[in-house]
């Protein structure tokens, strides 16, 4: 498997499309980083006190969006680009049957490919985060605290899982569809659906379950919100966004958008805006992270089974 892994890794890192994506990601990140750090520096100049200043580099949106949103949006594309032709390219090039004639286990091929993809995107994300951190340090002159580093590390780990999920989906499609074009389109349309249309779908489902009109009391609003949340959390994009927000912004105390608060609670919420400690942030998003990892493994598991059972007849 090591042999397949290193060959695939070399292929990924040498490929033109990876280079294009990398340049694109790096330049956009630099742009965002630049505007964000200017905004922050300006705010600091006005004497505003900001907690967890360093993390703001990733969460504050510049002119368009924040780095966190950028990775959430663009990460899937990276995963898809790395995986959509993993198996069917070999099938088309008639190299699959040849490689299977060599004394290796069949799963070495798919494991090697998946791990090489994961390694590539880990390398990419690490370099991206380090680059931004470095630039941020230089431009706003703030060194990250230990907790901020820990939060960034956790963020990195589940970002890899999130993009790995898309890699897994792309590899699955590359096994199921013989045509490279079909698998690319299938992965991309799934990504678009999940990224943009799930919130519409969630609203529709909520409308059906709790019809509009009538009494708009708290109970009604909460119930509606709960249904929307459940449906939209079927989408890995929502899961990832909520998790990233909570981990990178210690002020975020819940992933819920609507909450019922008693008068005392609301007073204390507005008076004491203390950040959550790291482990409490983790507790808030633990279900999200579990779901994300589960989805990733589940997706790869399906690809694995399908690949192992597939007849390798030459067409």
């Amino acid at each position, binding site marked *: 498997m090591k042999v397949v892994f290193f*060959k695939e890794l070399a292929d990924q890192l040498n490929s033109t499309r990876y280079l294009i994506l990398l340049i694109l990601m790096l330049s956009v990140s630099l742009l965002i980083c630049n505007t964000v750090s200017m905004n922050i520096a300006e705010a600091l100049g006005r004497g505003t006190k900001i907690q967890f200043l360093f993390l703001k580099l990733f969460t504050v949106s510049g002119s368009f969006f924040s780095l966190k949103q950028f990775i959430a949006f663009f990460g899937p594309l990276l995963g898809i680009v790395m995986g959509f032709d993993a198996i069917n390219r070999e099938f088309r090039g008639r190299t699959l049957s*040849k*490689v299977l*004639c*060599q*004394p290796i286990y069949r799963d070495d091929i798919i494991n090697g490919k998946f791990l090489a993809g994961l390694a590539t995107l880990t390398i990419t994300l690490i370099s991206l985060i380090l680059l931004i951190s470095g630039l941020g340090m230089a431009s706003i002159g703030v060194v990250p605290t230990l907790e901020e580093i820990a939060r960034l590390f956790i963020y990195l780990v589940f970002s890899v899982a999130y993009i790995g999920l898309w890699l897994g989906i792309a590899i699955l499609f590359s096994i199921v569809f013989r045509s490279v074009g079909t698998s690319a389109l299938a992965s991309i349309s799934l990504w678009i659906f999940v990224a943009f249309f799930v919130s519409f779908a969630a609203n529709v489902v909520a409308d059906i379950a709790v019809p509009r009109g009538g009494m708009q009391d708290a109970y009604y609003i909460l119930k509606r919100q709960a249904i929307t949340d459940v449906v939209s959390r079927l989408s890995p994009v929502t899961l990832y966004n909520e998790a990233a927000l909570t981990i990178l912004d210690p002020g975020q105390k819940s992933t819920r958008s609507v909450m019922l608060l008693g008068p005392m609670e609301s007073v204390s919420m507005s008076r004491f805006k203390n950040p959550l400690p790291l482990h409490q942030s983790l507790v808030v998003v633990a279900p999200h992270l579990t779901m994300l990892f589960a989805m990733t493994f589940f997706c790869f598991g399906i690809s694995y089974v399908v690949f192992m059972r597939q007849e*390798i*007849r*030459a067409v």
Partner: protein
Amino acid sequence: METVIETTGLTKFYHEIKAVEDLTLSIRKGEVYGFLGPNGAGKSTTILMLLGLTEPTAGRASVLGLDPSRSGREIKKSVGCMPENVGFYDDMTGRENLKYIARLNDIPEQMANIRIETLLETVNLSESADRLAGEYSRGMRQRLGIAEVMVKDPQLVILDEPTLGLDPEGIGSMLEFIKKLSTERGITILLCSHLLQQVQTICDRVGILDQGRLVAEGRIEDLAGGYLRGEEGQLSLEEVYLRHFKGKEA
């Protein structure tokens, strides 16, 4: 004499479609066995079963004394197989392709390098070894395929349509090379082809497969003789072959 490939009642169905039926073969060490038959006769399916890449529906096979469905990996260590229309990684050079195959076979780097140089020399690709495989001509690809098969220093070589798409000269040198493998190195060769005329010149024995069944088997002279049934003269294999199929149509 030692048998290298032995099958008894080997059968494979893809869903309802019969690919190979009740195939009983026995190939001895050191011989060149021509596995002949029209397209879709079940030759490639048989190869897949011999290498443990697909499970037989019924029957048993044994390659180098091992059961392919259990010890496919062991078998593939000492069996070289060139699939029909073999493909290469087009963005890698010929030499890199060979090196990758050597690595997949766990051959130590140094030994692999020596072997690869010798092989490139043998198949006449030394000069083009550092060009991308994607730029190779059909004949060069086929020769590179042979080199890939030989990298692992196999005891048995399975070639699926090695002469397909080659020019006459290429066919000649390819067949000569295959013959050399058998006479000089004592490698057993299973040669699958539908181009009878070409193949019959180098085969010790042939088996003719049609619609998944072995319809004739033996030495070429004997086969021709058997079909002759007293008629005068010698028949070429092609005539034997055509007679078989004509007879069935009638």
